[in-house]
């Protein structure tokens, strides 16, 4: 049983993961399907896969019921396990790569309620930061905010990294969506708590930025509801939810198209539903 399938950045490769504990990679150019790799290493069903940005090479992350997160890398044409993170006490449910501007950073959400952040520091080394008790009972989903350089439109001098404010959203079994922000000392702090769902939050998805000063997050839950959260001001303080739709059953998954004009929602009543999602236009 396939649990997740993801296209790479260019739509040329497909990664799938399954309850048979394997992660498979296919070349899907020109309508073909050639199996490139069958990666074994997990000891339980694999829930999710995520491709890193191609500027870091061909890198894939996977997370599993076996409480592990594995990072796979392609070197000289072959795929190998590059790193294994075993810092959680129960199933890891979701992995999400941060915007490439921040470096190579992976967020992982687990049923032990914690979220861990793995940052690549070079030479095969990964630094781990853990947010314990992010959500009581468990964390089901993590999603990064798009990279936005704060304030300035001036080109940064070469070689210097601009001061990005790193943010991501997480959804958990405490029915909450939490927004996390990295402080100057490198620690992660809970910035906002978004309450509207009446049951476990199953998925969160931060919409890609289309240049408007607003931020948008979609969330879906066991309670059958899909909310769209909008924040108007740049400081990210006031979030207001709009109910997109109430379905008759659990909603498992939400996902934005790359220009954020369509939100796809997968409902428990087993139909694939596609929505035209209007963005709130604030330009006169």
């Amino acid at each position, binding site marked *: *049983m*396939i*649990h*997740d*399938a*993801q*296209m790479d*950045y*260019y*739509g*040329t490769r497909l990664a*799938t993961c399954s*309850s048979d504990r394997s992660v498979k990679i296919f070349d899907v150019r020109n309508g073909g399907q050639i199996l490139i790799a069958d990666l074994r290493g997990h000891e*339980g*069903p694999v*829930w999710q896969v995520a491709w890193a*940005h*191609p*500027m*870091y*090479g061909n890198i894939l992350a996977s997370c599993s*019921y076996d409480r592990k997160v594995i990072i796979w890398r392609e*070197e000289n044409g072959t795929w190998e396990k590059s790193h294994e993170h075993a810092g959680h006490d129960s*199933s890891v449910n979701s992995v999400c790569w941060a915007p490439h501007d921040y470096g190579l950073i992976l967020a992982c959400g687990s*049923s032990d309620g914690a979220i861990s952040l793995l940052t690549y520091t070079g030479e095969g080394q990964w630094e781990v930061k853990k947010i314990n008790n992010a959500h009581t009972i468990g964390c089901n989903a993590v999603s990064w905010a798009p990279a936005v350089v704060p304030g300035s439109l001036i*080109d940064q001098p*070469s*070689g210097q990294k601009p001061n990005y404010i790193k943010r991501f959203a997480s959804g958990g079994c405490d029915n909450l969506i939490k927004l996390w922000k990295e402080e100057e000392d490198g620690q992660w702090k809970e910035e906002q708590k978004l309450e509207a769902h009446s049951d476990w939050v*199953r998925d969160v998805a931060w919409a*890609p*930025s*289309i*240049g408007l000063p607003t931020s948008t997050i979609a969330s879906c839950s066991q309670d059958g509801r899909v909310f*769209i959260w909008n924040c108007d001001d740049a400081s990210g303080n006031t979030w207001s*939810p*709009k*109910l997109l*739709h109430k379905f008759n059953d659990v909603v*498992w*998954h939400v*996902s*934005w198209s*790359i*220009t954020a*004009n369509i939100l*796809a*929602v*997968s409902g*428990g009543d*087993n*139909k*694939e*539903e*596609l929505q*035209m999602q*209007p*963005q*709130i*236009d604030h*330009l006169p």
Partner: protein
Amino acid sequence: MEEFDGEPAVTVIPGVNSKKNQMCFDWGPGEMLVCETSFSKKEKSEMVPSCPFIYIIRKDVDVYSQILRKLFNESHGIFLGLQRIDEELTGKSRKSQLVRVSKNYRSVIRACMEEMHQVAIAAKDPASGRQFSSQVSILSAMELIWNLCEILFIEVAPAGHLLLHLLDWVRLHVCEVDSLSADVLGSENPSNHDSFWNLPGNTQTLTELELKWQHWHEECEQYLQDSTFATNPHLESLLKIMLGDEAALLEQKELLSNWYHFLVTRLLYSNPTVKPIDLHYYAQSSLDLFLGGESSPEPLDNILLAAFEFDIHQVIKECSIALSNWWFVAHLTDLLDHCKLLQSHNLYFGSNMREFLLLEYASGLFAHPSLWQLGVDYFDYCPKLGRVSLELHIERIPLNTEQKALKVLRICEQRQMTEQVRSICKILAMKAVRNNRLGSALSWSIRAKDAAFATLVSDRFLRDYCERGCFSDLDLIDNLGPAMMLSDRLTFLGKYREFHRMYGEKRFADAASLLLSLMTSRIAPRSFWMTLLTDALPLLEQKQVIFSAEQTYELMQCLEDLMSRRPVRGESDIQQLQDEDIETTKVEMLRLALARNLARAIIREGSLEGS
């Protein structure tokens, strides 16, 4: 709490039993993946999927059609021409330009239709033949609608001319010969007919025309009432037709292929000077009469009706629903927008209808390996969200060849999309490093202004040099120019290479100074100092004194500096001991050479000039 209206559209995936199993999905850059799964995260799952496949769902499959590609390419040219029409133009000249554009679009559709028709006839198997034929009818419908829109909205034909245009329109689209009008022309009053329809160049006004027609109409009515033709039922029914009698017309239904043919014929005989605003009454009733309650209107009928009602938004909406790609509505709406016909509808996305449709169309083009280039121009002409949409899409184009990468980069650079340039260059640099093409990697990282990566690549170059004793990609390194300043390591690489060049050109004094400065200025990484000092050896051993006393002192300082920082070696194996031996020998040689040079330098500097 606000709620959004509208039910989401449901798409059914064939082969997947959506009643039994759940589906997971993800977005690709241009498509969507769907497969059966189970979301409940238990270790052992009870549900067994019946369908082992993953489906790739694409919205814009038409981009892959060979023949339609011509449509996209040629209409792209027309689109660009339209955008560049001088905004200053007004009145008649503007209108004629816009009409010309519209005719151009239509001729492109017809050309495409013709080609597809040929392919349909030549098709080997009936299934594909049918597919092509249905494409032909879709294109034909598109041309039909566009033509009508041109007459009503762009040409804005006034009463009188309107019917002429509509006649042409129907004649163009009805395959069978209009035998009815042939009959009429051959009938009793040809002279009246001839002069009546001699409109082009005619100096008659509309009123004069109307009067004449009224006169003629009354004459016909008189004939009917007097039962002049009672003996010939054929001629009588002809007379009734000429009087626009609907029932009589409908009796000839088989000759009328559709309701709009009926409509125009009816108008011809009952109200030839019909005004545009009155059209819709006739249209609706013609449709109803023709269908006669037996069948219901098809999408095409509704679109045409909406056009007759001058409801542009309805036309666009219905076309969007009925057609499988955005080409038609995007281009038509853009043209109508240029005619200033679209109210600024407060649509959320893209802020107006025109932009929304163009964005959708252009996004679809990006799914195609070469048509994406057309998409770029369309985004350029979407003032609100075009740029950011382009930014998001262009990064996703697979850069399989250097040529393609350069093309993409040029497009980004032309539009000052520096972030995208940087990102793409970084990706290419990384790819080059993995394929061991260091020169390529270096030039990409310079173009990306990526200091960190440039350092990485420079390190690789230096490492290669240490291993092989020579540089690769000399051309590149020699011609770095100001780009050298990007990173310290890169600067060192460039300067080090310069040192070698100077040595080769026997400019020993310059080479010596450079070598020394590389160490004293700390540009050289410490790990490289030994190599540099070893490079100094031949200079120290030369017959003439190259390094001055002061320089020699500095070199000695560097050597001692380097030695003092060496970690104390613990237990080592044979290989390490051997390496150590070599190291020690080298250091000794250096010390000796430095001492000798110092002595010679002091003597030389101490002596008087010329003595």
